[in-house]
């Protein structure tokens, strides 16, 4: 795979949702492409930032004791 990988495939790979054939090609490509490894890391950072941004936002106490 000479061309860079699409964001869609990188994003799906990050989530464990890429197809087996895609995964094999992608991993082979990532082994030699620092650019795509960097893009994958950046997408991972975004996903983690969203995850961290809200999981601790607890509902107001009155809602829990309605």
């Amino acid at each position, binding site marked *: 795979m000479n061309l860079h990988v699409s964001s869609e495939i990188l994003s799906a790979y990050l989530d464990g949702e890429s197809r087996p054939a895609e995964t094999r090609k992608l991993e082979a490509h990532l082994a030699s492409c620092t650019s795509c490894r960097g893009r994958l890391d950046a997408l991972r950072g975004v996903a983690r*930032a969203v995850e961290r941004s809200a999981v601790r*936002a607890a509902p107001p106490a009155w809602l829990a004791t309605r």
Partner: protein
Amino acid sequence: MKAATITSEAVRDLDLDLAERHRVGDVQAFDEVYARYEGMVYNLALRLSGDRDEAADLTQETFLRIYRHLGSFRGRSALKTWIFRIALNHCRDRLSRFRPPMQSIAEETEDEPFSVRLTDPGRDPEELAVAADESRRVSRCLAHVPHAFREAVILRDLEGLSYEEIAEVLGVRMGTVRSRIARGREQLRTLLEGGT
């Protein structure tokens, strides 16, 4: 693979049992549903509305709908995705009618910082303040991501749903889910790097 199948069947049986108990008047059944999904529905409403009071209202109204319709739940999808679909549709309906979405978690006054609402006793105040700043920044940027992409990113990264579950909640194909999550993340990355 077999274990995963058994687990999903067990979950389905539990879901159907809750619906049946609710149907025959067991009040504890709804309390169990509420306890299990309240936080997820509230967080979804919070990120879509951008306002805590509105998110609390949306959560209450969503659970009122769930209360009314739980008896008719037949297990064609998991209870979790059924609830997210109700919550998402209600948020879309309410927010499109009453005001433009996403105004303001990020715009809250400094005298009531986001950190006071964080619930993580294992972290010291400085860490919480940094986390609150980051949370505000992500919220501010998410508000600028088109709603179709934002919903997909929230369901994936915040709620932890699989692509298949997101497809069920949104009523779209798996390929569309893939595309929306990727585009949403790319747009969010650009916004975060741009210091919005």
